[in-house]
């Protein structure tokens, strides 16, 4: 004996459940990032390159080829302010489709609460999102966009988006285990959602929204004065939680983009999706563990 200590003195049970969850979440996220950065030559550059190329394409199409009638100036800043968070959401949800399948072996050997397999994806994509923000800062500086106090809403936007991404992830991840088709359906839906969300255009450009030139604080009145508010695109777009989230992000550079109606509907929708997510997840967990 001797070499082996008795379990009372060293066993790792000193951590509380929550601390252990947090610790594991951090380990897995670090692992993700390390694997991604250690196996590719460009490493961190990929977090930047992807949005850079995407925005270059849209910038070219919408400012050089078509005469643009949507969005704000400088367009590249306007675009990136929504494109970067979109990539976070898009990455987290499309990875969530493989959350259980890819880590099956690990899930079968540990007892960490299973929500971690979704949360870690949201977290690691979120860190990549933060890491890509310098791109936005760079273009804001060279194009002379002015940052204003609404930038303080950034944490709120991140919070709502986290709730949304976790919620959707918790719904998608377990269901894909039973319905493999869902993996492709989700990818397709995300492509649709890219154009259905105000990324290359503004929520204000939607029919029924308040047009450019109307100050933010008069917006509600203007919209209410329109005859068929309830059946306008603008109204229905509010139920896409991304609409409000992007409006919050964009407010940092374009205060007229901030629309509290959109933000509150989006917050409510995100919380609802989160609750549904927890419910679906709790419901499926048992069966998922048998299936993988």
């Amino acid at each position, binding site marked *: 004996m001797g070499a082996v200590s*008795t379990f009372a003195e060293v066993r790792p*049970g000193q*951590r509380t459940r929550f601390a*252990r969850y947090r*610790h594991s979440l951090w380990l897995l996220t670090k*692992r993700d990032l390390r694997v991604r950065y250690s196996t590719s030559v460009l490493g961190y550059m990929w977090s930047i390159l992807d949005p850079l190329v995407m925005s270059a394409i849209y910038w070219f199409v919408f400012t050089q080829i078509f005469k643009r009638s949507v969005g704000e100036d400088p367009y590249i800043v306007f675009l990136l302010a929504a494109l970067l968070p979109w990539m976070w959401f898009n990455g987290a949800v499309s990875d969530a489709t493989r959350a259980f399948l890819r880590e099956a072996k690990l899930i*079968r050997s*540990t007892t960490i609460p299973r929500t971690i397999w979704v949360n870690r994806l949201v977290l690691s994509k979120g860190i990549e999102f933060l890491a890509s923000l310098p791109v936005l800062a760079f273009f804001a500086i060279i194009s002379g966009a002015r940052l204003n106090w609404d930038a303080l809403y950034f944490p709120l936007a991140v919070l709502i988006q986290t709730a949304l991404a976790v919620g959707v992830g918790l719904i998608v991840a377990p269901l894909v285990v039973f319905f493999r088709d869902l993996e492709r359906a989700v990818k397709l839906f995300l492509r649709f959602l890219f154009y259905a969300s105000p990324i290359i255009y503004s929520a204000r450009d939607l029919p029924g929204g308040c047009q450019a030139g109307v100050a933010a604080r008069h917006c509600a009145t203007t919209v209410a004065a329109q005859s068929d508010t309830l059946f306008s695109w603008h109204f229905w777009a509010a139920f896409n939680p991304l609409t409000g989230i992007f409006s919050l992000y964009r407010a940092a550079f374009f205060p007229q983009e901030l629309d509290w109606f959109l933000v509150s509907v989006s917050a409510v929708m995100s919380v609802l999706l989160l609750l549904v997510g927890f419910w679906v997840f709790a419901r*499926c967990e048992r069966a998922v563990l048998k299936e993988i």
Partner: protein
Amino acid sequence: MNAPVIAVSDVGIRFRRNRGGRRTFKDLFSSRARRSRPNEFWALRNLSFDVQPGEAIGVVGRNGQGKSTLLKLVAGVVLPDEGTVGVAEGVAPLIEITGGFVDDLTVRDNVYLTAGLHGMTRSQIDERFDDIIDFADIGDFIDTPYKHLSSGMKVRIAFSVISRLEEPIILVDEVLAVGDRGFREKCYRRIEELLTGGRTLFFVSHNEKEMRRFCTRGLYLDKGTLVLDGPIDEVLALYNKDYAV
């Protein structure tokens, strides 16, 4: 009598027989009783037993009689459909031990990752790191990516990490079938050390010699139910009588 460290009461778990079995979105919303259950069978049912701290238990049965499922239930990596599995202490599951290892990371990173996921703190791992590497006997490969190890080495390092977890309950599921004879003997000695240190052991194997070496009590599973729960020799005797070669 102390409080049991593992309390299994009236546990049942069922699986689907065929992968293509119809599951509909409707199943998700209807109540548990009304859900359609195409072609399911009970892998275990009406299973109850208690385990006292420090006991060494061997699970006996033919293939497909629920031995591994029972171990997974105790490990908490699958959840029962009926009844409860109460596990009062931490578990070191020697099941799918290589599961946490990532091909692209080095052995060193993998050790920290896996031990961390099983609840060890960084300083605890620092302390044991040399021991772990020594035990697995792969000192020259610490900074080699895991995927470049031979399959024997992979199992060795994995066993070495998990068996260092210092948890009061150890579950062993035929992992030792691989590895050369020298290493297997080393593993057995480790398990014996752990047993003398007061750990509780749950052991699944088809090797009678191993069973008698470690275990004092046996559980005989057949067709998803517990046939006999008694001293290991009696259990093995009954098993051999039922399935004489």
